[in-house]
C-alpha cells in the first residue's frame, strides 16, 4: 500500500487551521465564527492523529478524544450563549455586539 508522506497531512491540517482563523476574522455570523473555531480544533486533531500514527505512539489519539470532548462541551455552552443573545437582540451578528468599548 502506498504510504502518504506525513507532510501532506501536516500541510492539510495547517491549511484547515488557517481557514479556521480566517473564518473567525471574516465571518459576521456568530454561529459561523464558532464553526470556524471548531475547524481550528479539528485541524489540531488531524495533526495529533498524524503524529500519533507516524510516531507509533497512542498519546496523540488519547489527546484527540479529550479535545473532542472539550469541543463538545464548548459547543453546548457556546450555542447556549448564542441563543441567549438571539433572544435579546433577535440577531446573532457579532458586529452589533459592542456595548463595551474603550
Amino acid at each position: 500500500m502506498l504510504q502518504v508522506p506525513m507532510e501532506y497531512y501536516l500541510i492539510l491540517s495547517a491549511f484547515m487551521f488557517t481557514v479556521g482563523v480566517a473564518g473567525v476574522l471574516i465571518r459576521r455570523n456568530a454561529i459561523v465564527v464558532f464553526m470556524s473555531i471548531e475547524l481550528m480544533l479539528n485541524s489540531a486533531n488531524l495533526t495529533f492523529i498524524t503524529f500519533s500514527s507516524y510516531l507509533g505512539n497512542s498519546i496523540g489519539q488519547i489527546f484527540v478524544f479529550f479535545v473532542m470532548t472539550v469541543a463538545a462541551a464548548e459547543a453546548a455552552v457556546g450555542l447556549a450563549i448564542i441563543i441567549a443573545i438571539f433572544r435579546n437582540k433577535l440577531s446573532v451578528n457579532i458586529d452589533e455586539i459592542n456595548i463595551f468599548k474603550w
Partner: protein
Amino acid sequence: MINLIYLTVLLPLIGFLFNGLFGSKIKNEKIIGIIGSSTVGISFLIVVGAFIQTLSLPVEQRSNTVEIFTWLNVAGLNIKFAYLVDQLSLTMGLIVTGVGFLIHIYSIGYMHGDKGYWRFFSYLNLFIFAMMNLILGDNFLVLFLGWEGVGLCSYLLIGFWYDRNFEKGTTSQAAKKAFVVNRIGDFGFLLGMFLIYFTFDSLNFKEVFAKATTFPVTETTFSLIALFLFIGATGKSAQIPLFVWLPDAMAGPTPVSALIHAATMVTAGVYMVSRASILFASAPSIMIVVAVIGLLTALMAASIGLVQNDIKKVLAYSTVSQLGYMFLAAGVGAFSASIFHVMTHAFFKALLFLGAGSVIHGMHEEQNIQNYGGLKKYMPKTYITFFIATLAITGVPGLSGFFSKDEILWNAYANGSFVFWLIGVLTAMMTAFYMFRLLSLTFYGNERFDHHHVHPHESPAVMTVPLMILAFLSVVGGFVGMPKVFVGEHGNLFENWLEPIYKPAQLKLAHFGMHSHFEEILLMAISVVLALSAIYFALKVYTQKPEIAESVSSKFKGLYNLLLNKYFVDEIYEASVVQPIQKGSEKLLWKFADVKIIDGAVNGVALLIDKLAEQIKKIQTGFVQYYALVMIAGIAVVLFFLLFSL
C-alpha cells in the same frame, strides 16, 4: 519570661486596637480605662518577670535576643524583627511600663468625663507599644520604628484637645511644632543610620558594636555617625538647639506631659546615646559636644524656669534642664549615671507632673501659679507627695534625686573638668530655687484665687494613690545607686548591673587621674549646702517677703524679661529660620519652583499621559473580530521574530 517579652509589645497594641476600634461604641468609661491600664499593667509584670529571670542568670548570659520574625531579607540587608533583652532594655522597660501603668491608672480619674476618653487611652497604649519597640529593638531599624511611633503619639496627644486654644495659638499648632522639630532630629538620626549601614554593613546592635571595636574605621567616620545620632537625640530629648517644642508640648493633657514629655519619650535620646555608647566613645570630640550641649541646656532651661508662672511650663523647663544633666553624664562617659538619672527623674518628674495635674484638676483648669497659694490645707495628699518630689529633684540628701545628680556632678568633675562641675552646681541651685518658688506659690502663703468661683478640692483616690506610689519610689529609688565613696567599690548596685553594657565603651575612654574620697565628699557637701541655701532663700522670698521678688525683677528688668521670654529663642528661630524658610518657600520654592517648574512638569506629564490614554483607549473598539485580529497580529509578529532569529 524573657521569651514572653514580645507580649509587652503586643498587649498595648491589642489595647490600642480594641479601644481605637470599639472605644467610641463603649459608653462605659471604666471598661475602657481598665482595658487601657491592664494591658500596660500585665506588660509591667512580664518585664518584672524577665528582670528577675535575667538577674538569676550569670552576668555573661544576661543579654538575650528574642527573635519574632524576619522582617526583610534581601541581598545583604537582613533585618530581623527581634527584641534584645538585656540589662539596659530591662531597666528602661521597667521604667516605661511601671511609670506608664501608674499614669494610666491616674488618667482614669483625670480624664473622667472627657469626650475623647477612649481616644486618649488608645493613644496612650499606642505610645507604650511604640516606646517598648524603641527600647527592646535589637537593631537600629526597629528602634527607629519605635522612635517614629513615639513621635507620632506625642503629636497626637499634644493635639489631643484639638479644639482648645493654647497660649497664642491652638493646640494643633503646638502639636505641629513638636512634630516638625522632631522631624529635623529624625533626619539626623536617619543619616546616622545610613552611615552606620554603609560603614558596618549591618544595622544589628550586636554586630555593629562588635565591628566598631574591631573594624579599621577612622575617627572622622565615628565622629560623623555620633554627631548624626546626637542630632537625632537633641530632637527627641529636647536639647539645644531643638528644645523649643517641649514647653509647647504642655498643651496636651497633664498625664501625657508626665508620661511622654517627662518620664519616658524624651529620655529616648539618652537611651539611644547610651545604647550606642561604643560609637560615641570612639568619637571623643563628639563626646565633648554632647557634654557641653547638655550642660548649656541644663543651665539655660533652669534659668528660664526661674521666672515662669505657668505650673506646667516650670516643670517643662525643669525637664529640659534635667535632660541636659543626663547628656552631660553621657558626654563625660558616665553612661550608667545618665540612665540612673533617667530612672530617678522618671519617678520624681512624673510625680511632679501628676501632682500639678491634681492641682490643676482641683483648681478648675487654672495653671498660673500666681493665682494659687495656700493650697496645702485643701489638698494635703497632693501637697505631701509634691513636697517629696520637690525635695527629690532639688537633691536633698537621702532622696533619689540626690544620688543620681551627685553621681553626675562627680563624674563631670572627675572625667570632665571643674568648669563642668561648677555650672552643674549652679544649675542645681537654680533648680532648687525655682522648685521651691513653685512649691511656695502653690501651697503656702495667701490664697490668691477667687473664692467665689474656685473651690479647691483633693483629687479622688484613683489619682492620689499613684502619687503616693511614685512618692515612695522617689524616696527610695536612689538607694540602688549609692555613691561608691559610701558603699565601696562594688556597692553601687545600679552601676554593677549595667556595667557589662558599657564595658567596650569604658575600655576605650581614657579616664583622668585618681581623685581622693575627700575631694568627692567635699564637692558633695558644697553642692548640698548651696542647694539648701537656695531652698532657704526661695522659701524666704516667696512665703514671707514677696516684695523682694518684685524689687529684684524690677531692678533687673532686662534680664527678667529675657528669662520670661525664654531668651527669645522662639522669636529668634521665627525670625532667622522659620520666616526666611517660609518666605523663601512661598516666593521661590512654592510660587516659582513648585508651581511653575515641578507642578508644570508633573501636570504636563500627567496631562500628556491623560491625553495619550484618551487616544490609546480607542484601540479597544468593542468588536470581537477586531480583538481576534490583534491577537493574530501579535502571534504573527512573534513568529516573524522567531523565524528571523533562527
